């Protein structure tokens, strides 16, 4: 441990830690654009300048290793003047179009300009124009005017995702971020650069102009895209900003997904499939109970389910790997001993999808296979066992492999085309309930309820008791 003094406060730092890290850890704010805890030190934005006692010039704190007895000043007049000058320089050619920039409200340039910048620009030259709304990839739009060349995005593709697909080309005020010439920027982790870009230069085309960010609030959830179970933030409309004339469905829509910081599981990142979680959850839903394809009330459906279960001689259950640990436990207590339990993978990898890599993505495309395995083992369905009733839990594309057994299907999304189960009960999605998944490493990750469930949809965990009665 090293002791140093920042703004007359004695703070402790580890060997090798920088002054910026030590300051941030102790709640002392030093502005920074290019520094990111998961990326290498670039030291190019210079907004983190601090005064070090005994040195003639200001030093960038992100690139300054803490040494014992160091005396640092972060708010002296000299530092503030330098900061204002740096801000002046950084936004020299900045278009200042916060009004139409999706980053506004969570943008570092905006925040720092308000907090540390000068009000009156000294430049007398007209602002330099660069291409705007340039499609860096089908998912990302790049606005070169807003870019402050901090190189976070470039370092991300070099150091984290390893695709080396971005670089900064040209010189001086012509510099701009560019993708590999003639290549599509199809990094499976590409959307993370939207989150780490300190300005509105990189924006999600999916979220583009959907909503101002201050109308939204994040809710902690878990990605169901693979067995990694990354933490994500699901952004829903704040209660006070609920719309009326634009349509109530906007109030129950997930606007965007961003990575949820979780050092145990996914660090700062998620993959693009995680960024698309709201699209996966937006698939056509099963919204009302169906008895042999005919819609029924919830009570009728429950009656029918009880009847089917009590009549069955040799019932089986196909357990969903998208069920939470709590629901699995509820099932085990209510029905586990009365049925033969089989496990399955609800979702297998799609063609073109990254199967597995060293960073996050896992080959098992279901969140809770481990949780299922811990409770029920690993037993694929056996069609020859002569079951007369199968309780199918989760998505299933085709009932044919289940043989002639009667089918009781619990699903969130519309069932297979042209086939109807003997009884279908719609259940809630991961956005509509809370619970935990156990990821492939055995770490449990909690998700919170984001939206209320539709009226006729049931929580699977609350169904089993009734069905078993």
């Amino acid at each position: 441990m090293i002791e140093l003094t920042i703004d007359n406060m004695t703070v402790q730092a580890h060997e090798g830690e920088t002054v910026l890290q030590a300051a941030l850890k102790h709640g002392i704010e030093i502005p920074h654009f290019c520094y990111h805890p998961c990326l290498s030190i670039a030291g190019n934005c210079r907004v983190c300048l601090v005064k070090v006692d005994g040195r003639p010039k200001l030093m960038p704190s992100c690139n300054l290793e803490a040494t014992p007895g160091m005396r640092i000043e972060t708010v002296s007049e000299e530092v503030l003047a330098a900061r204002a000058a740096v801000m002046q320089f950084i936004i020299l050619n900045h278009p200042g179009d916060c009004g139409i920039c999706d980053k506004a409200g969570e943008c570092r340039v905006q925040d720092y300009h308000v907090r540390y910048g000068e009000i009156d620009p000294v430049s007398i030259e007209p602002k330099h124009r660069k291409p705007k709304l340039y499609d860096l990839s089908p998912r990302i739009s790049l606005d070169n005017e807003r870019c402050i060349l901090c190189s976070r995005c470039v370092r991300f593709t070099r150091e984290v995702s390893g695709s080396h697909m971005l670089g900064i080309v040209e010189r001086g005020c012509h510099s701009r971020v560019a993708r590999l010439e003639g290549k599509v920027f199809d990094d499976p982790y590409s959307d993370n650069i939207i989150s780490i870009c300190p300005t509105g230069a990189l924006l999600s085309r999916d979220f583009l102009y959907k909503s101002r960010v201050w109308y939204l609030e994040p809710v902690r959830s878990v990605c169901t895209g693979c067995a990694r179970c990354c933490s994500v933030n699901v952004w829903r409309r704040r209660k006070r900003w609920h719309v009326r004339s634009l349509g109530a469905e906007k109030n129950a829509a997930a606007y965007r997904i961003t990575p949820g910081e979780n050092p145990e599981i996914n660090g700062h990142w998620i993959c693009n499939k995680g960024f698309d979680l709201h699209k996966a959850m937006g698939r056509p839903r099963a919204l009302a109970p169906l008895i042999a394809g005919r819609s029924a009330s919830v009570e009728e459906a429950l009656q029918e389910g009880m009847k089917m279960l009590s009549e069955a001689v040799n019932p089986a259950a196909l357990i969903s790997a998208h069920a939470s640990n709590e629901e699995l436990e509820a099932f085990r207590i209510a029905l586990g001993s009365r049925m033969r339990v089989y496990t399955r993978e609800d979702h297998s990898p799609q063609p073109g999808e990254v199967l597995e890599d060293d960073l996050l993505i896992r080959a098992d495309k279901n969140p809770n296979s481990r949780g299922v395995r811990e409770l029920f083992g690993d037993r694929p369905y056996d069609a020859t066992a002569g079951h007369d009733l199968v309780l199918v839990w989760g998505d299933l594309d085709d009932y044919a492999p289940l043989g002639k057994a009667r089918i009781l299907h619990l699903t969130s999304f519309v069932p297979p085309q042209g086939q109807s189960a003997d009884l279908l009960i719609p259940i809630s999605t991961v956005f509509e309930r809370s619970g935990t998944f156990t990821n492939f490493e055995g770490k449990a990750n909690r998700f919170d309820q984001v939206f209320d469930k539709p009226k006729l949809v049931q929580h699977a965990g609350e169904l089993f008791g009734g069905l078993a009665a």
Partner: protein
Amino acid sequence: MNKDYWNKPAMGLWERLYIFEVIRGLCITGSVFFGNMWKWLTLRKGALTAYYPEEVRSDYSPNNRGRHVLTQRENGEVQCVSCNMCATVCPAYCIEILSTANFDDVFHPKAPERFEIDYSRCIFCGFCVEACPEDAIRMIKDIPDFPAFDRDTMCAPLDLLLNWRPTRDPAKVYPTQPQNGEVHPWAA
């Protein structure tokens, strides 16, 4: 019905005697009536009622801000860039905007697709006008004519706001051609 109101009057003996309070009330209305009649007899203004909506009062102050207009650009497009400043500042939460992206128009990449002002909620404070960085929304001397049986139908949509009194002199003028442009090698 025995409903408890928060402002239920507390009646003392005097009020309960009824007749004296009624006479006091009649005195008040009577004095106003005769006062107005006297004004009318001496040819002054005072007792005249405007028959809304057939008649509109002609004596609104020039500063009256009764109704919103959205201004137009030279080419008739809406001036608004859908920045949502007005909707954010509005203390009645009555402006709702749905934006669209137009990647081809450098000077209007973001524009409102729907713009609704809910006049059942608007309190005519004018904050939206103050907040607008584009001079895209103004309030002018008029009255919002939205008699309705249902509060949900008292919204003014984009078309109406833009066209009920077309205004084409926004203070902020957009050029029609890109200036000093650097063309991106792949964008060309």
